[in-house]
């Protein structure tokens, strides 16, 4: 039996987020909100382990009331229950404060039934920091296993998990002690389609909501106040200085381009 928690974040579909160049503010209007793609693989991994070893999967999200949607998606994928952490006081949390709040919620779950595994995505596609997972692991003192691309197995008796981590040009096989926190990459598994009964169950499920008062939190460590980093300004990525279109038929254009690159020694003989 494994007691598992999956942290899922609702994110804007970043392909569509733009900066208004005049006001330097984010244009989010009309941008669809989705389940962070890596987190979908995290849910799938936990559900697969439950199928193999038995246990329970809790999906956990911090966000505004609308974040309920991603929790229902997790339930449709096979999570057993969902908890939403929602409070105005959480707004503006950076990764230090976010991991503090999520870790406090995991501790509360742990008090009911001890938690063996926590799953996070490799990173969220909006904030893109990949810092929340390690932050939670550090706070809980769990074994930290990041960039997990395969789970070889869990030894419930010895309380160990063996995984493969995806590094730049290497794959690392590593065995860690439970409880552990895993951050996962997409190679870990293929997502399955949710079954109709699962979707109906997910749509009808009640989602537990916890506010700051339901958790053991120091008010100075949450939200803007609890965040050491602050965004001073945001702006559109600078455009590279405009380039030069080389006219002419392919052969002609190729000759001109090559001459430019060779004469300036940008490309020299190898």
């Amino acid at each position: 039996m494994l007691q598992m928690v999956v942290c899922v974040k609702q994110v804007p579909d970043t392909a569509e987020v733009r900066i208004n160049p005049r006001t330097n503010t984010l244009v989010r209007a009309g941008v669809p909100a989705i389940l962070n793609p890596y987190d979908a693989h995290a849910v799938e991994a936990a559900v697969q382990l439950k199928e193999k070893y038995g246990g329970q999967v809790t999906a956990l999200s911090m966000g505004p009331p609308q974040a309920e949607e991603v929790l229902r998606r997790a339930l449709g994928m096979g999570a057993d229950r969902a908890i939403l952490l929602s409070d105005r006081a959480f707004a503006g949390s950076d990764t230090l404060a976010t991991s503090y709040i999520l870790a406090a919620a995991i501790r509360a779950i742990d008090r009911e039934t001890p938690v063996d595994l926590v799953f996070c995505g490799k990173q969220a596609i909006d904030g893109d920091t990949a810092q929340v997972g390690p932050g939670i692991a550090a706070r809980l003192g769990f074994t930290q296993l990041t960039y997990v691309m395969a789970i070889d197995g869990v030894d419930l008796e010895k309380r160990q998990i063996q995984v493969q981590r995806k590094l730049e040009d290497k794959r690392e096989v590593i065995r860690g002690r439970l409880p552990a926190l895993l951050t996962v990459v997409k190679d870990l598994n293929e997502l399955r389609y949710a079954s109709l009964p699962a979707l109906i169950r997910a749509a009808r499920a009640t989602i537990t909501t916890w506010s700051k008062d339901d958790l053991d939190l120091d008010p100075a460590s949450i939200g803007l106040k609890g965040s050491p980093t602050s965004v001073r300004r945001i702006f559109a990525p600078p455009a590279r200085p405009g380039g030069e279109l080389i006219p002419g038929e392919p052969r002609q254009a190729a000759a001109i381009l090559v001459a430019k690159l060779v004469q300036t020694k940008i490309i020299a003989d190898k």
Partner: protein
Amino acid sequence: MAGEPAPVSWELLGAGRQLAGALKVELAGVLLGQGVEGLANEAWAYGADRVYLVEDPVLGPYRTAPYARALVELVQRYRPEILLLGATSMGRDLSGAVATALGTGLTADCTALNIDPATRLLEQTRPAFGGNVMATILCQRHRPQMATVRPRVMPLPPRQEGRQGELVRVGIDLKEEEALATVLEVIEEKGKAVYLDRAEIVVAGGRGLGSRENLRLLEELAGVLGGTLGASRAAVEAGWLPPEYQVGQTGITVRPKVYFAIGISGAIQHLVGMQNADVIVAINKDPEAPIFKVATYGIVGDFLEVVPALTEEFRRQLAARST
């Protein structure tokens, strides 16, 4: 760092030198591992005034817990104003744990670092939202100000052969039981793409190639130039090249001397992975393709004609030069 130093370490020393200069403070490097003392020479050569060295068998293979403990202790003892790490998978794994233990701020994946002379604060600029947005982040009241820096974004500083500095050996009481994990095996994922992030010339293809067979034309061009192939996500998803070749937000960041973007439209998620190339050459049949906005040189045309012409011209002109 453990074992082979990541090249980004030396890039960090270059960036750190400038910050230390602006603040008029010293620049130190940290060496954690087993049998890594020899690297201190490299750290001095790339600009460190001082090197803190922690050698311990527990630090042989990288594991988060002991590395984090060692670095946290160093920071608590020596109290740097700024702590930089490479945004490699190891650096990101470690920095998140360390910043949390220290209760300080951490800015991920920075592409620019500056000191505000009035406040002495570190201005940390980074892409977010998949590269659609740049943000400048401050860490005003907590120390150290921590940042990870993406590899290949800061230039490699010149190596000053023979430059010496101070070595500070630090003993930290680490226990194997507290490592929480055991590395069983490390498997090299070989293939040319392994070196993509260090390649001087990248010849990248996208959906516009139309088929796997057409990749041959790019291989020939890369062959003449001693370059490495790269791909957009669309080309990877089509199965023409394996995922290790993907350049961009969810792939590799490259900083070559020349990047050829062939049949690649120039989506923002692709651009964030290659826009630091010294020269970008775009070949696309659509004159409106966004890739032309970032290209140093562009040729509008069908790559089926342009690429073989380029290969032939390079062959001819390079041969003419070397005789």
